[in-house]
């Protein structure tokens, strides 16, 4: 059985999607899938990186995190 659980965007996800899905996969994923994984900031300030939506600063953020 393949299970897909979706939650309202105000909740913490059961899996930590940022550490679960490999970066090599992320680069090929659609904007919708990135949104589902939390890489897009909604209207409110949720999931920010450097005050911005993560999808706008992914490459530079990865570089910094790997230092």
């Amino acid at each position, binding site marked *: *059985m*393949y*299970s*897909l*659980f*979706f*939650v*309202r*965007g*105000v*909740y*913490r*996800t*059961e*899996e930590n*999607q940022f550490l*679960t*899905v*490999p970066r090599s*996969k992320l680069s*090929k*994923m*659609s904007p*919708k*899938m990135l*949104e*589902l*994984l*939390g890489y*897009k900031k*909604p*209207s*409110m300030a*949720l*999931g920010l990186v450097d005050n911005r939506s993560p999808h706008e600063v992914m490459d530079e953020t990865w570089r910094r995190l790997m230092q």
Partner: protein
Amino acid sequence: MSSPEWSHIPAPATPIDPSYKPKGSIVTVSATASVDYILGVLARDGGIIIKDFVSKAKMNTIEEEIKAWNEQQPVENNSSRTGDAFHIIPSQTILIPGLVGKSDMVAEICEDPLLESLRENILTEKYTVYREDWVEPIRIEPLLSLSLSMNIGYGAPRQRLHRDDNTHRIRHPKPENWSFENVSQFACLIAGCDVTRENGATMFVPGSHKWDDHRTATADEICFAGKNISLYPSDTQTNSMHLINRNVCRICFDILWICFSWRRT
């Protein structure tokens, strides 16, 4: 004096008597059913079976994509079982977490128009914030909480009836106050084989998504999400339960009441 031994892992649940006859059943529709129809059934029952939601060809693709992970994890040496996150899932089950990162087809299914529409209708937050003279329409899109393959081995006991939204400590209002506004999540459970009561179809209690926190489900209220189901999104919230099995899908609901630190940062 030593304290009594205690474990948060309970003994296996008592099997359902083979002579048990469910009083109700779960509605099955085709994948061409309208979203409004599906929403109507979900609002009433909390779960629905959508036949042939995923084609056989796509199912074969998924199986091929995750084959390596299935083979890496024999039941008796299954690394996914080393954690205690899913202690309520029988140990005979092979779990493959992070499924969307391992199967492109599963990721593609996440974007299926039906699932997208259900997310839009059930889980998307749309509201307006007022700050003095400033009016700001807000939209918060849903998230993927968990993508997980569950291959349940022979002889596994059933899970006890439970509500998946207990994870977020959702408070449930009185039945007469229920609405989709109260739903915190839903699940799409895709059956990887023909599912029957005998081989472990998911069990759930129709209508239990509307129950408040003073009522818990008992085994004599169960329905089985059999048979020959391709996909069965059912209501999560509804105290749903799984049996021995392999495959089935349900959609889960739950109610959002008050939130504390389990919310997103």
